[in-house]
């Protein structure tokens, strides 16, 4: 327990932890500010007046056009091109005027107002916040372990605590606790800020029992995903014994790895559901709880669907995490330190 507490303090006291924390909160505030200024509960009086003016102008122009059969044929008309237009030129005159000048315009046609719907959009933003926080903690955990290896601190610690499994367990537990606390804190903060934004500048919508059930299930699974990412980040740093190696593998997969998967997906005609090759598909299924993949018959065009459930995705993602954790444990237990 002492070792776990010391490891928790060690990772919490790092400058990178503070930096990532500030970065995450800053990004959340920026996102909230964007939502705040873009969202509106409805048009203002000025907006309505301007929209009415624009609708009246459009209607007046339509009526002028509709009343004059030679409107497009006049020598000084700026719309002389309409008669030669393959589509408009074939239409009856009144219809062409309506197409061109939005006949029967209403003020609503000229009002551009975005209203933030918390019950519909908020959950996607919360999931995004949990994933980004998980990524940051994954990098943080990898960095903390990698820096200890490269600075010689790990060997120093092992001189104090020769039971290697205990050391690895304490470090992993500390990283997971940090991840859980960080994800929970960011979710609470994001929920509060976004709900406030929706209350003041948008619409909170219907947040009834089924909504809470569905939302908590998705956000909860995303939080579990963040914990799994932390385990993989820590394991990679333990295997590579350097932050750069762990970071390189993570960034490498997220860029080159997925790119290769995309190439294979487009080129692999023998694979019935090539989307299964991408980790993002499984992550999506895990978060959403269910994902449908379609195989379109090239002859009949009929769909042969396949459904991935959260259980399927959880088993695969859990297996990947366990493989990395197992390799790291074996490596740390067996390899010479230094």
């Amino acid at each position, binding site marked *: 327990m002492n070792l776990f507490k010391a490891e928790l303090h060690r990772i919490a006291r790092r400058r990178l932890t503070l930096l990532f924390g500030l970065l995450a909160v800053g990004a959340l505030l920026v996102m909230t500010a964007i939502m705040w200024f873009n969202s509106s509960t409805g048009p203002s009086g000025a907006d309505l007046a301007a929209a009415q003016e624009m609708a009246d102008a459009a209607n007046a122009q339509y009526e002028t056009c509709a009343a004059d059969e030679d409107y497009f044929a006049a020598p000084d008309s700026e719309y002389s091109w309409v008669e030669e237009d393959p589509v408009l030129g074939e239409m009856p005159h009144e219809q062409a005027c309506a197409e061109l000048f939005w006949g029967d315009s209403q003020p609503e046609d000229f009002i551009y107002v975005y209203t933030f719907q918390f019950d519909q959009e908020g959950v996607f933003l919360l999931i995004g916040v949990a994933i980004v926080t998980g990524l940051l903690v994954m990098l943080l955990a990898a960095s903390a372990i990698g820096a200890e290896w490269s600075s010689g*601190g790990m060997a120093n610690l092992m001189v104090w605590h020769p039971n290697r499994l205990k050391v690895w367990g304490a470090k992993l537990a500390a990283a997971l606790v940090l991840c859980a606390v960080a994800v929970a804190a960011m979710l609470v903060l994001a929920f509060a800020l976004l709900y406030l934004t929706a209350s003041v500048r948008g619409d909170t919508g219907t947040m009834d029992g089924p909504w809470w059930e569905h939302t908590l299930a998705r956000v909860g699974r995303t939080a579990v995903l963040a914990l799994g990412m932390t385990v993989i980040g820590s394991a990679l740093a333990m295997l590579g014994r350097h932050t750069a190696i762990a970071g390189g593998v993570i960034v490498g997969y997220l860029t080159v790895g997925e790119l290769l998967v995309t190439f294979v997906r487009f080129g692999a005609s023998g694979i019935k559901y090539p989307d299964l090759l991408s980790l993002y598909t499984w992550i999506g299924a895990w978060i959403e709880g269910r994902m449908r993949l379609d195989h379109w018959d090239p002859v009949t065009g009929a769909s042969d669907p396949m459904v991935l459930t959260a259980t399927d995705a959880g088993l695969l993602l859990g297996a990947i995490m366990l493989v990395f954790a197992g390799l790291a444990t074996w490596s740390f237990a067996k390899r010479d330190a230094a």
Partner: protein
Amino acid sequence: MPSVIEISGLRKTYRKLLRQPHNALDGLDMEVAAGQVHGFLGPNGSGKTTTLRALLGLIGTDGGTMRLFGEAVPRRLPHVIARIGAVVESPQFFRHFSGRLTLQLLAESAGLAPARVDEVLEQVGLRDQAKQSVKGYSLGMRQRLAVAQALLKQPELLVLDEPANGLDPAGIHHMRALLQWLAHEQGVTVLVSSHLLSEVQQLCDSMTIVSRGRRIVDGKVADIIAGHSGSQLSVRLADAGQIREAVEVLVGAEGGVSVAAERERLVVTGAPEAAWVTKTLADAGLYLSELTTETKNLESVFLELTGTAPQAGQAVQVGQPVPGTEETPAAAATAAETAIGGDQR
């Protein structure tokens, strides 16, 4: 006196892909008695740090046995580690933590009282720099911090790898006084590996000299040096042209005496006593102008035993044996056993 450290037949081979295996330890034996400052000497690459790493469970071994406080390690290391403070290799810490925080985290991890941190900072002379980041520490300050973390547990055994590295003369003096106080006043057993032979000579009560992964000699420092001194005489003749004749006279007069001519002097080893040389040469009509007994220091003993003494006209890399003296460690050990006092193995 009971042994705190017992190592027998320790072997470690480093294997790398596409490279020849390297035997870092080739059947090393070592014993360290309680309450002593014990020096662990050897040229670069002789296996000192490897031994300490193995002893502290940082690396695995390929054979042999090790015991600390009578407990087999590394299996029982977790049971005795609370009694051991150690610094292996150059002290390295997380750069952005202060010296105090570095020690606090270690103390917390072992459930030690926080007050102990300030005590050891005071002991190693880092109290005023405790709040500074480690990245601002000099090598000497890091060395002190490393020793401080080794002292945190109030250990019964202190294992220090090159503790004087980077220290200035005042720091070395302070470190020496601290280690001797720990050993002789507090009863702490101290094992110190070092390249600073004069330092070992001043600091240590006993020592083990290793070469190429094997023990060459061990015993009290004074005994080992005494075993190598006194038998070497430097002789100059009144007529330098008679040196060749003098060599023949001395070698022919008594078996076991070896004489080497070096420029204008003779180096005589194995003579019964200085007066015998005087008389033998005088009887042959050869008269001395100078006769001195050469007393060896630890450095010359070390260079001789490890086969790394420089020879005129031969370039020797640091830590490598002198060309022509590349006998096996076992042979070197046997040769040493017949030549000097102390407990040669």
